């Protein structure tokens, strides 16, 4: 009786556990089937051309891929220093009393709905970007020979840079939380040994703590990248939604993959148009799988065999 029940129970939970992978496989299959017409019609040119014309039924998603990459890179470049700096302060320097409140406040950012970020960005951030930050960047960094081109054009406020800045704020909590966990997982003996040798706090952090935690922090950044890739609403509201060209400037309206799906899916009335949009979803799904895999490996390498193990 008991053993029979055990077997039934085992089979039951196994079925529950398999349900999730099955869902993923089913979704993937569905996406592949639905994107098949576009896959076979456009092949590789889908990834290399920027013409996206629902009237003439010619689809190339390069501008969307480019927009997603650029906004994500901006987001990580802006968010990573802030997140890592905050995490170092909270684990190494901050008085105990304020550690929890600061960490809580930063993590609270993760609970603000995407659409609220978008509205804030449209009404507060975009006007500031257009009138102050972008002209400021143009007057300073814009004059530097090699990178000056990044800041060329008329500042409109609805552009790749704005999309990246909103994303930076949105991925900050996950970056900070992961960095903090990883830094907490660094064994106290690492610091104690350095300080025992007469090192300053800076030397202890930069030579003993950070190198130890580096893979985990990179893993956190990769998770942030994953979040930035898929983020839709807030970016759509400020990125400009124009896939006209890849100009190299950050001050031109752009388009991300997730925005393209959200904007065009509902009214995609012909089969090829529909399947071209589903193919964007396929690309996003593949990216998500790869990014997640990389993050897992990096974080595991960072916390394996550590005394104060953390669960990510």
């Amino acid at each position, binding site marked *: 009786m008991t053993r029979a029940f055990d077997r039934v129970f085992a089979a039951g939970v196994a079925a529950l556990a398999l349900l999730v992978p099955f869902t993923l496989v089913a979704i993937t299959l569905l996406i592949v089937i639905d994107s098949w017409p576009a896959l076979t019609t456009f092949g590789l040119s889908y990834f290399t051309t920027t*013409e*996206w*014309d*629902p*009237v*003439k039924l010619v689809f190339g998603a390069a501008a969307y891929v480019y927009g997603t990459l650029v906004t994500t890179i901006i987001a990580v470049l802006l968010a990573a220093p802030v997140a890592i700096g905050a995490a170092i302060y909270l684990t190494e320097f901050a008085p105990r009393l304020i550690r929890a409140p600061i960490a809580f406040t930063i993590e609270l950012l993760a609970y603000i709905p995407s659409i609220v970020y978008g509205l804030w960005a*449209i*009404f507060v951030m*975009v*006007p500031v970007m*257009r009138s102050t930050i972008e002209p400021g960047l143009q007057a300073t960094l814009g004059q530097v020979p090699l990178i000056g081109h990044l800041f060329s054009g*008329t500042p*409109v*406020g*609805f552009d790749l840079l704005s999309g990246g800045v909103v994303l930076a704020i949105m991925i900050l909590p996950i970056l900070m939380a992961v960095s903090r966990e990883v830094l907490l997982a660094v064994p106290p003996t690492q610091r104690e040994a350095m300080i025992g040798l007469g090192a300053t706090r800076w030397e202890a952090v930069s030579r003993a703590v950070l190198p130890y935690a580096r893979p985990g922090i990179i893993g956190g950044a990769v998770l942030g990248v994953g979040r930035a890739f898929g983020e839709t609403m807030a970016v*759509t*509201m400020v990125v*400009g*939604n*124009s896939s*006209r060209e890849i100009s190299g400037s950050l001050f031109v*309206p752009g*388009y991300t993959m997730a*925005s393209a799906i*959200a*904007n*065009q899916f*509902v*009214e*995609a*009335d*012909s089969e090829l148009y529909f399947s071209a949009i589903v193919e964007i979803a396929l690309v996003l799904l593949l990216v998500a799988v790869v990014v997640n895999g990389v993050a897992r490996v990096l974080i595991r390498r960072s916390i394996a065999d550590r005394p104060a193990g953390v669960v990510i």
Partner: protein
Amino acid sequence: MKKPLIASLLAFSTLLAACGGATPAATNAPTTGGTTAANACAVPVKAKCPEEASELVGAGATFPAPIYTKWVSEYNKLTGIQINYQPVGSGGGIKSLTDKTVDYGATDGPMTEAQLTAAGGASAVLHIPMVMGAVVPTYNIPGVTAALKFTPEVLAGIYLEQIKKWNDPKITAINAGVTLPDAAITTVHRSDGSGTTYVWTDYLSKVSPEWKTRVGFANSVNWPGGLGASGNAGVAGSVKNTSGAIGYVELIYAIQNKLGYGMVQNAKSKFVEATLDSVTKAADGVTLPADMRVSITNSENADAYPISTFTWTLAYTEIANKAKAIAIARYFWWSTHEGQAFAKDLGYAPLPAGVVTKAEGMIRAITTGGVAALPK
């Protein structure tokens, strides 16, 4: 296996004979019973008739959703019939109708030949006009408060990114008395697929051969440049926030949000402000095809606002489910007659009388089992 089918077919045809005022046999030999049943389901709609379905599901265009919602609630008060209208977008409405997951669809742009073929052929689906709307240019130019005048050439030139400054001679020539600044023009368009974009680009395609070949018209197109923003609210917000911007929004949206908008020169070279009356004029006194699958942008009527459009509901000409066929026909009849009274308050232009007559003909063409759904 065959017996029950035949039996039900027989029962069905008896039912048809009982109700059907439209079969030649029934008209030639009216029976008292038949006449009573026919009268109950006749139009105008006074109350639910015994033979019609008590629930309908529709899906489609978002642009007329506010008035469709109003109609559904008023019609429910009158008849008790529950109608569930889902504003999923014109493309979604056409898809749902083709997949037969809804009883009727709704769209802001007529179905294409390919879509009609998928749905069963050119005569399989009826496009019944419900109300009219318009799309207006709205702009944000520093120091300009007057209503600007636009010619078709100027609108196309701006959206083709050929006219780049507000003080371009082509704009100043038609706006004597308005001081236009030397400011760059930023065009704003809908980033989401939309019937509003369909009307706007359909108009530009009619007035500009270059637009027609380079861009064309559809719910979303490959824009020559500019910013994309989602929904009327997104376009209006981007225009408001961007100095020198021009965008296009639905007339209703502009009226409700007190946005300033420009006058557009119509096909008879007259500058017309978009009002509910000038929109109705676009379908008045012009020749319209029998199937009503027609764009009325750039109307020939001298008083018409040129960027006007119908919005249609879509129904199959032959609806096998008799109860549903009667319910749909009666609801459409009520919408195109009594329902029109609600249009102006909600910012829609009512149909002109000539179009209502055409709609009547189309609604009477809805059949069930080959017999007209509406009794004579």
